[in-house]
């Protein structure tokens, strides 16, 4: 049981550190958000790891509930950050801060494309 806990929780710690590294090193907003979510995922790994009590005993429900709460919080924060990033993208680009998303050609566009032509259906 302890090995499983340590393997899974240790992986969580590694993810946490990787997330911090990526957050500090990468510039584009979306990558920073992915990094933050990976950090969060790492912490959740740790919590789930210690919820495991062996194959024959019911797991600890408290850390599982904590992780559920944490996931919702992470989703909310990511949503707000993306909206702020898109608003920044919409405003006229001057010499902006590090967190402006890259030019639309370089990455996945955050906005839906306007299609000038007809619809794609052939029937």
């Amino acid at each position, binding site marked *: 049981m302890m090995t499983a806990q340590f393997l899974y929780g240790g992986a969580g710690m590694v993810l946490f550190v990787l997330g911090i590294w990526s957050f500090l090193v990468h510039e584009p907003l979306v990558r920073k958000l992915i990094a933050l979510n990976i950090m969060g995922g790492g912490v959740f790994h740790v919590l789930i790891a210690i919820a495991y009590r062996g194959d024959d005993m019911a797991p600890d429900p408290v850390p599982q509930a904590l992780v559920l*709460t944490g996931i919702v919080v992470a989703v*909310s924060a990511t949503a707000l950050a993306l909206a702020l990033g898109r608003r920044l993208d919409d405003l006229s680009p001057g010499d902006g801060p590090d967190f402006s998303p890259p030019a639309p050609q370089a990455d996945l566009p955050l906005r839906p494309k306007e299609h000038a032509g007809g619809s794609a*259906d052939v029937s």
Partner: protein
Amino acid sequence: MSDNGLRSDTRDRDLRLLLGVLLATIGALLLWVFYTAVASDPGPRLAEIAHAKVPRSGVSNPVTSVLLNFRAYDTLMELAVLLAALLGIWSLGPAAAPFQQAGSALRGMVAWVVPLLILTGGYMLWIGGQAPGGAFQAGALLGAAGVILRLAGDASAGLPNEVQQRWLIIAGIAMFLLLGLALIPLGGGFLTFPPVMAKWLILLIETAATIAIGATLAAAYVGGRPR
């Protein structure tokens, strides 16, 4: 210019390397500390206490007991976090233009998938008392239905007008608060569910929360104030 560019590139690479080494050391330290903590074996932590109290909580799924009864206050604030994010998104401006209308294949799929999602959401909500499931899972499915509708060309992701949306998104927190406050005279404290009523109170709160979460997630995906 190329000389400066090279130098700053090397400096960046060096900085990254330094940062990487520093973080790797921190990671190793964290791993060792975690190992020590796990090895110290503090026993079952809260598991035994939680499982012992589950029968009195009104539901038989231990995680739902923790979420909606033992630590209901955390869940209430978590709903508030979700709402705050949506309000922040709404404050930033109107929603972007909708996607193009779905072609016939996508339209056909949507006609099947969305009702199925709603049905599954309802099932998740009900089964959450006994098996993995509950308000958040059900709400996420409803939100997914909204996302699919928006991707298929529906500008409002299946949601009603803004005034009605505002009522939907507060439903979860409002139900939680009203029941919680009503329980002060009736139940013995804020959010203190009497074991006989607990099952129905939890179901009531979870239903309101499911609607709120689904609406909030769909509205967040729309990404701006409804036009």
